């Protein structure tokens, strides 16, 4: 059953023509499982919900962690210059027109890569950090973030996109120089949390866009690929 969601009601000629065209190409198109398109739509919604949940979780976690780091990191007006060290973190910042023009594949891939790397950095945070409660919260957040990465991977594979080959850049433990002093180490942590927060805000917008675009586009995309 082809998903014709989005067709205006009463546009019977349009539906008829569409069905005819689709049926003519049916032998060349691999079995279009209706549940697959619905599956992609649903997993996009789930991924969107997950980013909102994580953003909410991060607010509490960041508050606690920054308090643990102490001033000036926990001051609301703290606005440090971005050091070169922070450039190794995946940045959500992007030119507006560029962001708008991203293909679905590029959009999903950017999210996947970013969260994979951020997760590695997060796991690399000093395991002796703070209180038991803070470590517990951090651990819980890491599992949720892992869930997000897997969810994005799920969306990509259900849409037929290849997964990006591993997170770009060397893993943080070996590649990056260790912070020369305690203050710079804290700065690293500060920027990590900030980048996570910004990525989660961006992802909500990314998945909003995907939600609107993907379900009908999937069917057309596949037919086009088969020389319709």
């Amino acid at each position, binding site marked *: 059953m082809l998903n014709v969601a989005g067709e205006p009601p009463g546009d019977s000629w349009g539906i008829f023509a569409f069905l005819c065209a689709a049926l003519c190409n049916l032998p060349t198109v691999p079995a279009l499982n209706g549940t697959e398109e619905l599956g992609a739509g649903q997993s996009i919604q789930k991924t969107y919900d997950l980013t909102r949940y994580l953003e909410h979780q991060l607010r509490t976690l960041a508050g606690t962690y920054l308090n643990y780091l102490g001033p000036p990191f926990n001051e609301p007006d703290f606005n440090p*210059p971005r050091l070169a060290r922070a450039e190794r973190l995946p*940045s*959500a910042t992007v*030119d507006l027109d560029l*962001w708008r023009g991203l293909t679905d594949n590029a959009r999903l891939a950017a999210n996947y890569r970013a969260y994979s790397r951020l997760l590695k950095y997060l796991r690399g945070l000093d395991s002796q950090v703070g209180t038991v409660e803070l470590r517990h919260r951090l651990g819980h957040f890491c599992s949720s973030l892992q869930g997000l990465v897997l969810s994005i991977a799920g969306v990509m594979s259900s849409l037929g996109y290849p997964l990006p080959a591993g997170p770009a850049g060397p893993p943080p433990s070996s590649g990056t120089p260790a912070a020369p002093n305690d203050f710079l180490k804290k700065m690293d942590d500060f920027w990590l949390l900030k980048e996570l927060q910004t*990525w989660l*805000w961006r992802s*909500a917008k990314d998945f*909003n866009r995907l939600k609107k675009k993907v379900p009908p586009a999937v069917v057309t995309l596949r037919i086009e690929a088969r020389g319709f």
Partner: protein
Amino acid sequence: MANPIPSACCVVLAVVVVYAQRHSQQDSHIQYERVGADVTMKCGSMDWDAAVTWTANGTDIDDSHLNGSYLILKNVDLTQSGQYSCYEGSSWHLKYQTNLRVGVPPKEPVLMCRSNNYPKGFYCSWHLPSPTYIPNSFNISVIHGTREMVCEKDIFPKNRCHIRYLQLFSTVKYKVTLTVTNALGKNSTTLTFDEFAIVKPDPPESVVAKPVPNNPRRLEVSWQNPSSWPDPESFPLKFFLRYRPLILDQWQHVELSDGTSHTITDAYAGKEYIIQVAAKDNDIGTWSDWSVAVHATPWTEEPKHLTTEIQIIDPHLSQRSGDNLPQPPPPPPPHSLRTLPVLSLFISSILHTLRTYHASRHRCGGGQSHHPPSRGTCPKKPRR
């Protein structure tokens, strides 16, 4: 021979220019002083002991304010602003003129920045909490990380400027500093914020509430995205609707994650409602202000004709009581017959009660209401 006309023109022009210059040197002088200050004005180049007359806005100032040829104004207030002139005693030559403006240095200005058109950019607007009574100039600077951005001043409203975002999803905060300066001092204020924190859409537009025919408890509300929000497709808005009948203070709320219409299904029949809607970006920022309020009353049936019913049910009523029953006002013409049986039942029960009451009065001579009429035996009393 040289043409006399252009040379005559040149002479006249020269005279005019010199005259204007001399006058401008005296007229254009403005002097700003703080409220409560002591002001001493010298009469130009005149000596201290010269005989001079000072005027304020054309009115002579008496000698008590003079110290020689200097004018002393102590503890000036706002009413003392004006044009002060000094004339040489006998010749009445204008020697000095100044425009005194009394004011105060600026207090810390109030600055507000907001993005009602995300992701295009944001605007900042400002004002002074209290007037300075003298001209002020404003200077605004916006710094994003290491970059200084230009805030373009709006023509209207005046104290406002806008900035276009060059990049989205920035981790670096924006720092906006507003400096206000006048002749008596300066003051400034700074705002630091994240891109996401200042997102606040304008309220929804064209809110319309209509009754739903044949549904006495429903109201259909619809509205539009604010026109300033540039991209509702990629940056969808969610809405918050609140409504209450005018006679109650408690609002009811509904949050709607998409769509620009909603049907209220629990309205009190026949009551006028007040309804408002607010908008927010789905994920970031804060709620807009409430929209303009709209009023609507749910659909009701038309009331039916009453007087005809009373006359039909008990034409003897007016004869028996002897009192003057007030005449009912002329009723509107009946439209629907559905409420007829209910209404007639109601009226007949009332009339039955009235009839019974009047019957008991006639039997027991009134006042002895504790005797139920069914007893039948009542003490005989002379008729009133």
